[in-house]
């Protein structure tokens, strides 16, 4: 399996914008294997914010193309993310490939796949694969959570700036003796003492 370009939701959205949001587009986004529902939710939020255009998710399950085509047309011009291909057998992929004309619509279709379902797709849906062409992207991880070392470093900066230890800060916060600067609220949360806010 070839390696694919890693792209953030913003970059994928920009590609859709450049093609035209009312142009028929097929893309595949390879989502992470772990924490998939969370990754899909984040992708949906960021894509929607990027293109400022309606985006919806459709759970495919094992729907036939005739069933799904109705859903794709209501409405027809938004951007749709199709997910739930984990249950697809090779036979269902082949049925989809044969009935691909029923899936055509003016708005973009994004197939949300995993590495495993991508292999099945490529092996059994060569014509839809042709629609997609080179538009297969691995979703780059947003990775915004501060690491433990970043949190520790930040706490050190705060202790240095305010010239007091975290324990001293907590003691003073509990007595209501601290200023209300935004950095104090951040410090308390970093220490897990949001109860003092």
């Amino acid at each position, binding site marked *: 399996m070839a390696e694919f370009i890693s792209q953030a939701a*913003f970059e994928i959205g920009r590609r859709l914008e450049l093609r035209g949001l009312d142009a028929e587009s097929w893309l595949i986004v390879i989502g992470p294997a772990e924490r998939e529902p969370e990754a899909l939710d984040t992708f949906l939020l960021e894509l929607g*914010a990027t293109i400022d255009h309606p985006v919806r998710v459709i759970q495919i399950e094992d729907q036939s193309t005739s069933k799904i085509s109705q859903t794709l047309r209501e409405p027809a011009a938004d951007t749709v993310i199709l997910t739930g291909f984990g249950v697809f057998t090779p036979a269902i992929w082949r049925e989809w490939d044969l009935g691909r004309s029923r899936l055509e619509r003016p708005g973009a279709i994004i197939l949300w796949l995993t590495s495993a379902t991508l292999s099945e797709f490529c092996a059994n849906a060569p014509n839809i694969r042709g629609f997609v062409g080179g538009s297969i992207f691995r979703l780059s*991880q947003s990775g915004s*959570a*501060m690491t433990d070392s970043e949190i520790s470093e930040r706490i050190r900066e705060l202790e240095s*700036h305010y010239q007091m230890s975290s324990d001293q800060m907590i003691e003073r916060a509990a007595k209501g003796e601290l200023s209300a600067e935004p950095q104090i*609220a951040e410090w308390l949360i970093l220490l897990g003492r949001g109860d003092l*806010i």
Partner: protein
Amino acid sequence: MPEKASERALYLDSKLENQAAEIKLPRFKEVLAHLRVYLSKQNLELGLENNIQQILKTVVKPNLGIITVGPPFDKGPTESHFKMPFGARLSFGITLREGNGACSLIAYRFHIQMGGGSKPAFYRFDLNERRHDTPLVEPRCHVHPGRDDIRLPFPVLGPIEVLDRIFYVIAAR
């Protein structure tokens, strides 16, 4: 402290307090998504090379969260700042409380350090976590026009609205 001035400041501060309480933001993940996209768009439009994935950081605790770019205090350029044109740099921290599918503002700080000898050298928009005893010198929501010891009252804004002032009003000059 002039009595009437302090009374006027107290009244204004109560209005700022109400403004803060009235701002309702979407759930934390959505606020984060909007900020990530906003900064990505600015990056693109200004031809910058900030790695948004790397500099936009969060800390999430049960019903409280922080979204940051850059250090808590600007003491010089760092890799974690959002670098802007003409040598300016942006750092911010937003503290939110989440409940019932929405977020409310607890505090924020947005610091733009200007470059190239600009005056004032920086602007910082602060929303304090609570009111101060002397709101005439420290309103709950204020802007520092280049001095840490001067705080002028400022409307409480949503995070994107503050960034709009930074990118389209301050940095655009």
